[in-house]
Structures are given as structure tokens and as C-alpha cells.
């Protein structure tokens, strides 16, 4: 393998050694608690739109915890963080912009 790659692998491994294991257990606990809250909210007879908003907000928090701590992105260099997250969020926003207005239009036209 190329020497640069080996050097970088060594540095990344060294970074991992600096993280405390307790941190991963805290993240895991937080994810389980948020999941329990989601299930609890499901049975509170909320208006669907409000419930969807809350559930998606909680899912985004869970996603941030997984990406940041488990996938280690919080500890990567800025270039890696910004390029990966901006590109995928940008694409998903484009999908939202193009798809959903059409779905709502069908509903208002009364197509059954």
C-alpha cells in the first residue's frame, strides 16, 4: 500500500484511541430514549401534520448523533464535513422542491 495511505490510516487510528468509550454508550442511550419518545408520541392522538413534524425533527437529531459520533464525521476535517453534508442535503432539498408541490396539487385537484 502507498506510504501516504499508511500514514493517514495510522493518524486516523490514533484519533479513534482518543475517544472515550463512555461517549458511545451515552449516544446509544440517547438514541434509545429518543426512540421511546417517538413511540410514546405516536399514541397521543396528535394531528398528523404536527406529529410528522415532531417525528422528523427527532429523526434528524438521531441522524446527527449517528453521523457525528458513530460515523465519526464530527472529528473529520472541515472539508470532509461540509462537502459530504452539503451535497447530500442539497440533493434532498432539490427532490423536495420538485416532488412535493406536485403531490399536493394532485390532492387539491381531487384525483381519487
Amino acid at each position, binding site marked *: 500500500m502507498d506510504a501516504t*495511505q499508511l500514514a493517514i490510516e495510522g493518524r*486516523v487510528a490514533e484519533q479513534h484511541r482518543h475517544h472515550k468509550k463512555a461517549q458511545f454508550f451515552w449516544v446509544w442511550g440517547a438514541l434509545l430514549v429518543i*426512540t421511546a419518545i417517538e*413511540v410514546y408520541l405516536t*399514541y397521543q392522538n396528535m394531528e398528523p401534520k404536527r406529529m410528522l413534524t415532531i417525528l*422528523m425533527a427527532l429523526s434528524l437529531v438521531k441522524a446527527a448523533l449517528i*453521523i457525528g459520533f458513530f*460515523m465519526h464525521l464530527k472529528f473529520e476535517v472541515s472539508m470532509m464535513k461540509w462537502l459530504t453534508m452539503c451535497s447530500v442535503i442539497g440533493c434532498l432539498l432539490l427532490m423536495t422542491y420538485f416532488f412535493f408541490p406536485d403531490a399536493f396539487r394532485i*390532492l387539491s385537484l381531487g384525483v381519487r
Partner: protein
Amino acid sequence: MAESVVVPEVPSVYEPSLFGTYSKKIGMWLFLLSDSLTFGALLYAYSYGRISTPNWPTPFHSASIVNATIMTAFLLTSSLTMVLAVRAAVDGNVRLQRWFLLATMACGTGFLILHAREWGNLIAEGLSLPAFPAAPGHKAAGEFVDVAKNVPQFPATFFGLTGMHMLHVTLGVIYLGVISLRRKFIPILLLCWLAAWLGTPSYSPFHYGAHVLLVAAIVISIVLWLKPKIYDSSDVEVAGLYWHFVDLVWMFIFPLVYLMSARIL
């Protein structure tokens, strides 16, 4: 430390990495970004169908919600064991690394079994796709026969989305099996294929779906024969990225598909 520019001490013909990490990891991130768009498209298709269909069904009883919650707990726990496997790998503790990888695989397999059971129950109640063989004796009196007939978007998007995720989890378990056990995993995989193929009735979608395991066993055999290697901590970390991504996707499927379609009496 995370912001520091990488300057390798060992001389090399290549420039330092712009992303501050090794190429295998960047490659996996790029794959995951593209795969997130695949799941994004499926989630959007599901949501589109839901928004534009006034009589969207809510077929998930509390038993299904409990089942899906346990599946979520399995995946979250598997992410914890995976990150501990990465930690053991960078510490050079091969034995612990293997145990944590096996624990991750066990949680993933538990998720798959519960998911298959959920699918089986829904299909037995008449929620099916035209592509699935008819289950004898179940469909006529099933609870969801009308759903499949009147709102075909629901089974199409539900089985499409969760089936794609199930395939990813299956491939993730196989990936981890190769990383932890290497060649020893091939006979285990073949046994799993035989058990899944012969142990499921011919009308079950898993009867034919089990052949994914056979195809995977063939591909793994070729890869390990062409390039046998001992997987190091970077391979475990890259495999971990894939596994956490599978977990991440479920964090959106669970509320969007299951919780938002829970039947509340």
C-alpha cells in the same frame, strides 16, 4: 487536531489527502452519499404516495409497532457494538474486535428475522404485491385484501422501501462476516442459504430472496480467491461506516412508515 492538515512523515509520490483521511474511507463515503439518494428517492416516493392518497391505510397494530421498536433497538445496539469493534481494531485487540463484530452480526440477524416475520404476517393478511406468489388459504379472508386492491401504492412503496433496506442489512451482515471470519464465513453463508431456501414455503418471497445469499457466497469466494488478505483496522472502520448508514436510514423509515401509519383504536 481534527482540523490539522495531513503531512505524512513517510515520503510518497502522491499529494496529501484533501479530506484528511485515507482513500478507502473516502470511497465508502462517496458510495454512502449516492446510496442515500437511492433511499431518499424511495422515501420521497412513499411520502408522495401518502400525500396524494386521501385514504392511506394505517395497518400497523400495536403488535407491529412493538415489533418495529424492538427491530430499532436491535439496530441501535448493533451500531454500538460496531463502534466498539472499530475501537478494539485500532487498539490491536483482534479477539475483542471479532467478538464485537459477531455481536453486530447477531443484532443484524435478529433485525432481519423480526422484519421477515412482520412481512410474513402482512402477506398472510392479504397485503401483497402482484409479483409475490399467492399464499394459499390466507388471502381471501385477510384483513388487508382491500388495501392491496384499493391503495396499491401502499404495498408497492412499503415493500419496495423496506425490502431495499432489508437487502442492505443482509449485505451488511455478510460484509461484517467476511471482515471478521474471512474464508471461514463462506460455508456458514452457504448453510444459511440452504436453511433459508429449504426452510421457507414456496409461496414466501424469502424462498427466492434467499438466493441473494448464494450469489453473495459466490462473489465472496471469487474476491477472497483473487485477493486474499488480513483485514486491518481501516477495513473494520470502513465496514462500520456502511453499517451505521444502514442504521441511519432506518431512523427515517421507522417513524415515517410505521409510526405514522400506526392503527390507534
